[in-house]
Structures are given as structure tokens and as C-alpha cells.
């Protein structure tokens, strides 16, 4: 602490007239205390103010959102949207209604799927680096070797000749470098002009920074691509200025620019705006970052697992990621961290200035009312161009909807969706269509064909034997006379703003719906999952069709998330209503109108399992009879197993 003498005001020392002769010193000393105390007081005040400013600024840099009114509001709004439309998120009122179910191994082991990809045990999440090479489809995936919850992530690996019969291989990459010590995270593959493969993936470094790393096959002659080499100069990309160290992940497959360079995008966020950063490279080792973004959408939060690819406007075949031209639209897709929904939008890509403009900005990427690949449980999806069959294939991670205690007890968590072809709907031009890869038909065993008329308020059993592994293709027609009556009758209410999610499910009856199938039902229908159409008569007297899945009665257990999922599905003039359903134990995938609207759900029945599962057709409409023509196949298991020497002789199907 400085002595008060050193804080003497300058004037008392320098002013020759203030009486600074030796004999007047005692006087000035008596005056000093007041001035000195004032000086000390203001000094401390200034220090205090400075410290306050420093602390509130330093402490609040990452929490600007907390202090900012507008971002607080949008977070609340997003939370509100989440709670209503994404019931994979639990409600904040936690008291569970209904019966607790004591999960036992018999019930739990039934849940394992027969023909969806899942590892032998433990946790899986995002699909990584899917590709076709030297006769094999390769699939990599985020995997926890130690537990049935996320953590300790490595790259799992499997191969298949047909995207259905998978063979487990050893891990492709593990966290053995400082730049991925805390996780070998999601990435994508690119084929170079000479046919060689480069893999870009996110590493979580030993200091928890998210960086991008380069890896490539150790032996390109090995069709199984067992071993991978990490580039000695990793990381090739670190978070740029202005981007958070933990907001920089999931690099895309690269595409060629008209300059002959390779271009990738990486999702991120700035405050609450989801963004896509652009990097160009010639060698995948050094990159130029663009000053502009490929695209951004406010209030959508962090963009994970961004994907960018061309689709043909006229043909339903797939396109290599580098294709461009007048005949082509480009899709931007992102996984929204905030809501766990995969959104996409259709737009136009301008290579010369690296921009992309959506066809319809009101349903831009990430907007809650925008388009989704899937209206159920489906996240972190990724496409790749299958050069073997000229199609673009979509992989999606399907997590669990049950409690983690059940996952721990059954010792696994998550499956992958059946790979789907994805293409622009050339008839509407406004949405993608997806369809399970044709190879899945190789699992079809015996089938039965049905043609049934179902009166309003009727449930009809469909006798096909066991019903836990099914492929159903169905066509529905509403009785013409009933439709005409409904049209003419003004008292029949226009179903204003119908939404599957808030409709209350399949037991709520309307004039023209719901009608469809009850799958994974028990004989008394105490447990069932309905996959159905709901047709509404709009204000303009036009019909509007919705495709929904109601899991609210799928199980009597109460520690499971049981939403009603679904969305509007475009039905064009002259089209019949069609749906396809894949049932595989605890996963149901529904495809409405040829894959215009898709819904994946996870269900965990306690009674409708093993020999007790049944299939029903129902019509809960009030005013219309429906006719259903459908075929039901029993589905074989894919017998997914560890690769062995015997598997080298596996012939490719079709």
C-alpha cells in the first residue's frame, strides 16, 4: 500500500505560493488528509468499476445469449417448439403416468432388429464416410466400445455386397493421436480423380478443440479397407477466428469446382444463426477458407452433419457430388442440434461465387415448418453417391426412445435406418423422395395378398402368421360415393390446420380418416402402433392428406417416449393413396406416397412380442368406407455377423 505522502496532489508541491516553506509544512500536512482520502476514495472507486466491467465482460463472453433479450426469446421459442413437435424430448413435468414396467431380458432381447444395421452391442450414433469400393459397400459409424451410452467414440466399420447383409470388421480408427484423443468423430469420404479415397473427419483434441483431420486407406489394394493411415500433418483445419472451438465439426464430401479445386463445407453457428463454412483445397492438406458462407439461416442454432449434393430435375437416378448444370438442383441438409431434426431445402448453387439460394426461403434449411427427410426419429443422416449403381443413398441414425436403464440392461443402443435411395420428386419438384434400397427385397420370404373393404369404425385382423418382421405395400381408395357426400356436405368441418403431432392420434376420428394398419399389436389391441393416412377437406374443398404414425399406445410401459409423428403428404391428381411399412421388432419405417413423406419410429411393446404380435387393418373414419389392396411379406433376418474367410466368396445379389 503506497503511503499517503506519495499521493500528494501536485499543486501543493509545485505551487510556490501555497506556503511550502519549512515552517508551514505542519499546516499543509493537516490539510493533506482530506485531499488524500478523496484521492484514495476515487482511486478505489475507479478500480472497483474497472474490475466490475472486466468481470462482467470476461464472464459473459460465452453467455451473451443469456444477457441478450432477443436471443433469450428465441431460445424459449425453440424450446416451446421442441416440446410440442419433438416428443423425443421429454416433457418438463416428469411424473410418469401409467404403469412402470419391470424390463426383463426376455422382453428386452425381442427388441433387437433382424435386418437393420446395428453392432453386436453398445452404443452407436452417426453414419460416417459411406462409400462403395472394389465391390464392397463400406459403412463406418460412431461407436462406443465401452458402454450403451454415447462416449469414448471410435469409428466402427462394416462391409456388405448389397447394403443389407453386413459383415462386422475391426475398428477403422481409434483416438490414438493428440488431435483426436477425445474422440474420432463424424466425417465423409471423397473419391479423387484417380479413384483413390480421402477421408476427412472431426477430431476432438486432447484440449477438447474440434479440428478436421485427413485419413486415407493404408493399402488401397485391400478391398476391405481394413487399415487407415492418419496424415502426419493433422489437423488440416482448426476452428477459424470467430468460430467457437466446439462449434466446428462434420466435414462434408468434397465436390469439384469449375476451377478444378475441391470444395467442402463444415457446419457451425454464430450466436443462434446456423451457418456453413466453405473451404477449397487441391490436396486436402491445405485449405483456403472463403470469407462468405455457402448459406446461413438465423435462429436455427448449430448445424451438425451438413450435407450438400446435386439432384437431377428430370431423372430419378443419383448424381456424383461434383455434377452441376442447368438440369440440376442442389440440396443443403443439416442436422439441427437444438431440435434433433434433420432438415433439408432445395435450391440453386452458384459455383462461381460459392453461394446457394433456396427455392422457397420460407421453408429454408432448419425452419421448423420446413422439409425433413423423416418425420420421426432420424438424425445425423448422410448421403453418398453409389457409383456402382448410379444412385444416391441416404443413411440415418435411429436412436432409442426408451430409458437408458433399459439400454444398459439390454447392452445396446441405436440402429441405422435401412439405406434409402434419395432423389428429387420429379412430379412435384418441391420435395425429395426416398425409398428403401431395392436389395432389401432379397429378404422377402412368403407373401400374402389381400383386397379388403373396410367400413367406418372397423378393425380387421390380417392373418399372416408372425408379424415382427414384415414388408407391407398397400394401396387405399376412399369410396367415391362417400367422398362426394363429404364434399357436398358443408356441415362436415374443414379440418383446420390438422397436424399429426397434435391430433391426439389414430383414435381421434374424422370424416375421412384415420385409416391404415395397426402393427406390432397384440390380439386385444392393448398395445399397437398405427401407421395411417388422415385425409382432410380443406377450405377450398380440396383434399389434403397426412401420413402419420401413432406410437402413443405402442407399449404399456411408461418410461418410453411415445409420440404421434407425421406430416402432410402430397397426393397428385389421379394418384391412389399408397404406403409401405417395414416392421423389424423395435423399429417401424413408414413411407407415404412412394416416399414423399417418411416416418421412422421406435417402439417397445411388452405384450405384442414374439408369437403374440398381430397385424390389423383399421378404418376409423366416420363417413367413408375404404378399400385396401395390399401385400404382406415375411422378412428374413439379414444375419449380420463378423466377417470371416467364408464371406470372401459371397456373390453380389441382383
Amino acid at each position: 500500500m503506497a503511503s499517503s505522502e506519495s499521493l500528494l496532489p501536485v499543486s501543493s508541491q509545485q505551487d510556490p505560493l501555497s506556503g511550502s516553506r519549512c515552517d508551514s509544512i505542519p499546516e499543509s500536512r493537516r490539510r493533506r488528509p482530506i485531499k488524500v482520502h478523496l484521492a484514495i476514495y476515487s482511486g478505489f472507486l475507479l478500480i472497483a468499476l474497472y474490475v466490475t466491467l472486466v468481470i462482467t465482460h470476461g464472464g459473459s463472453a460465452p453467455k451473451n445469449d443469456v444477457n441478450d433479450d432477443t436471443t433469450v426469446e428465441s431460445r424459449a421459442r425453440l424450446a416451446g417448439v421442441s416440446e410440442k413437435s419433438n416428443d423425443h424430448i421429454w416433457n418438463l413435468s416428469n411424473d410418469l403416468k401409467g404403469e412402470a414396467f419391470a424390463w426383463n431380458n426376455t422382453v428386452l432381447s425381442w427388441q433387437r432388429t433382424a435386418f437393420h444395421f446395428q453392432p453386436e452391442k453398445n452404443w452407436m450414433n452417426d453414419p460416417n464416410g459411406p462409400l462403395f469400393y472394389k465391390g464392397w459397400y463400406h459403412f463406418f459409424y460412431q461407436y462406443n466400445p465401452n458402454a450403451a451410452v454415447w462416449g469414448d467414440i471410435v469409428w466402427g466399420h462394416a462391409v456388405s455386397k448389397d447394403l443389407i447383409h453386413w459383415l462386422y470388421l475391426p475398428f477403422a480408427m481409434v483416438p490414438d493421436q493428440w488431435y483426436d484423443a477425445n474422440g474420432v468423430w463424424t466425417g465423409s469420404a471423397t473419391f479423387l480423380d484417380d479413384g483413390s479415397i480421402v477421408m476427412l473427419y472431426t477430431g476432438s483434441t486432447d484440449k477438447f478443440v474440434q479440428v478436421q483431420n485427413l485419413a486415407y486407406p493404408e493399402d488401397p489394394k485391400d478391398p476391405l479397407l481394413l487399415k487407415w493411415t492418419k496424415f502426419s500433418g493433422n489437423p488440416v483445419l482448426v476452428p477459424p477466428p470467430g468460430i467457437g472451438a466446439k462449434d466446428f465439426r462434420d466435414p462434408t464430401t468434397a465436390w469439384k469446382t469449375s476451377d478444378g479445386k475441391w470444395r467442402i463445407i463444415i457446419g457451425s453457428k454464430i450466436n443462434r444463426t446456423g451457418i456453413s463454412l466453405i473451404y477449397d483445397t487441391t490436396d486436402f492438406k491445405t485449405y483456403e477458407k472463403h470469407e462468405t458462407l455457402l448459406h446461413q439461416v438465423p435462429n436455427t442454432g448449430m448445424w451438425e452433419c451438413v450435407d450438400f449434393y446435386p439432384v437431377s430435375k428430370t431423372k430419378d437416378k443419383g448424381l456424383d457430388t461434383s455434377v452441376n448444370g442447368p438440369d440440376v438442383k442442389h440440396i443443403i441438409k443439416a442436422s439441427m442440434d437444438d431440435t434433433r431434426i434433420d432438415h433439408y431445402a432445395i435450391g440453386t448453387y452458384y459455383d462461381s461465387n460459392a453461394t446457394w439460394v433456396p427455392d422457397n426461403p420460407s421453408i429454408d434449411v432448419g425452419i421448423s415448418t420446413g422439409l425433413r427427410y423423416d418425420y420421426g426419429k432420424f438424425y445425423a443422416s448422410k448421403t453418398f453417391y453409389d457409383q456402382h449403381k448410379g444412385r444416391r443413398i441416404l443413411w440415418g441414425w435411429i436412436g432409442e426412445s426408451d430409458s437408458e436403464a433399459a439400454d444398459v440392461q439390454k447392452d445396446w443402443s441405436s440402429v441405422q435406418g435401412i439405406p434409402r435411395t434419395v432423389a428429387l420428386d420429379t412430379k412435384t419438384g418441391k420435395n425429395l423422395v426416398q425409398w428403401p434400397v431395392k436389395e432389401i427385397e432379397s429378404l422377402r420370404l412368403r407373401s400374402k395378398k389381400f383386397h379388403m373393404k373396410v367400413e367406418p369404425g372397423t378393425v380387421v385382423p390380417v392373418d399372416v402368421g408372425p408379424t415382427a418382421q414384415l414388408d407391407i405395400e398397400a394401396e387405399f381408395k376412399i369410396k367415391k360415393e362417400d367422398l362426394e357426400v363429404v364434399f357436398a356436405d358443408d356441415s362436415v368441418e374443414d379440418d383446420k390446420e390438422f397436424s399429426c403431432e397434435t391430433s391426439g392420434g389414430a383414435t381421434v376420428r374424422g370424416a375421412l380418416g384415420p385409416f391404415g394398419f395397426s402393427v406390432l399389436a397384440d390380439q386385444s389391441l392393448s398395445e399397437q402402433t398405427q401407421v395411417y393416412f388422415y385425409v382432410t377437406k380443406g377450405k377450398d374443398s380440396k383434399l389434403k392428406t397426412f401420413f402419420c404414425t401413432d406410437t402413443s399406445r405402442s407399449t404399456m410401459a411408461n418410461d418410453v417416449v411415445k409420440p404421434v409423428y407425421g406430416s402432410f403428404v402430397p397426393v397428385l391428381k389421379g394418384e391412389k393413396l399408397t404406403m409401405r411399412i417395414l416392421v423389424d421388432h423395435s423399429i417401424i419405417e413408414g413411407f407415404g406416397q412412394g416416399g414423399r413423406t417418411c416416418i421412422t419410429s421406435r417402439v417397445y411393446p411388452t405384450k405384442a412380442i414374439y408369437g403374440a404380435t398381430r397385424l390389423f387393418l383399421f378404418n376409423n373414419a366416420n363417413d367413408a368406407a375404404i378399400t385396401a389392396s395390399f401385400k404382406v411379406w415375411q422378412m428374413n433376418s439379414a444375419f449380420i455377423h463378423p466377417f470371416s474367410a467364408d464371406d470372401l466368396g459371397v456373390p453380389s445379389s441382383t
Partner: protein
Amino acid sequence: MKKMVVVMMIMMVMVMVSEASMIEQTCKETPDFNLCVSLLDSDPRGSSADTSGLALILVDKIKGLATKTLKEINSLYKKRPELKQALDECSRRYKTILKADVPEAIEAISKGVPKFGEDGVIDAGVEAAVCEGEFKGKSPLTSLTKSMQKVSNVTRAIVRMLL
């Protein structure tokens, strides 16, 4: 001298007020402001933590509460042997919180993929609710399970700020 002490105290109060308001600002955005503030204020790490750090402190509280509840469950086997079945289920549920939910949340929040942290934290509340439901209205653990649900809700709100 007295004046100097007063000035110093004013300075300290100003510093303390600006620090406490960070916890308060964060807790305002959670469903239980008072619980949130009391949990964070009582922890020495709270005063200098960022949002991630606050979330991790609360995950630690979940861990402590789960440990305490398991001890209580274990002591109830002797006192209330007729509740064995329910206690077994509670034990399994609370062990999940400790072995799965908490490690998952810590790793996810530290590494910047908070959505997995949110999953773990939500599940802690679910497991507590399931345990409570096992007793069909006559639970000896109500205050502990209700606590877990409340802490889970508050923690979840803070983890969501990281998304």
C-alpha cells in the same frame, strides 16, 4: 482509515454483485430459480464458471444426489423388507444414473456436444420418476426422487443454453 475500509468494502461488494449476477442471469432461464441459485452459489466453482462449467457443477450435484439416494435405498432393504421388489428396481435405475447418465453428460458437455449431455440429464429425471412410481403412492424416497427431478430439470435448461 475507517473511510478506506468503507471504500474497500464498497469495492468488494461491487465485485461480488457483478459475479453473482452471472449465476442469477443463468438461473433465471431455468424452471427453478431458487434451487438453481442455491446449488450454484454453494459451490466454490460457481463464481468463476462459464455456462459449461455451471452445467458440470449441476451434473456433479446429480451425481451426489444419486449416490445419497442409493445409500438410502440400501438402508431400506433391512428396514422395509416388504419393499424389496421396488427397491431392486430403484437400485437399478439409480445405478444407471451413476454409471451411464452422469459420465455421458460430463463427457458430452466438456467436449462440446451438449445434446448427449441433455439426454443424460433428462434420463436422470426419468429414472428417478420410475423409481418413485414403483411404490404406487407409498414411497419412502419421495423427497429424494422429487429432488432429482427438479435438479434434472434445472440442469437440462442450462445444458440447452449450450446447444
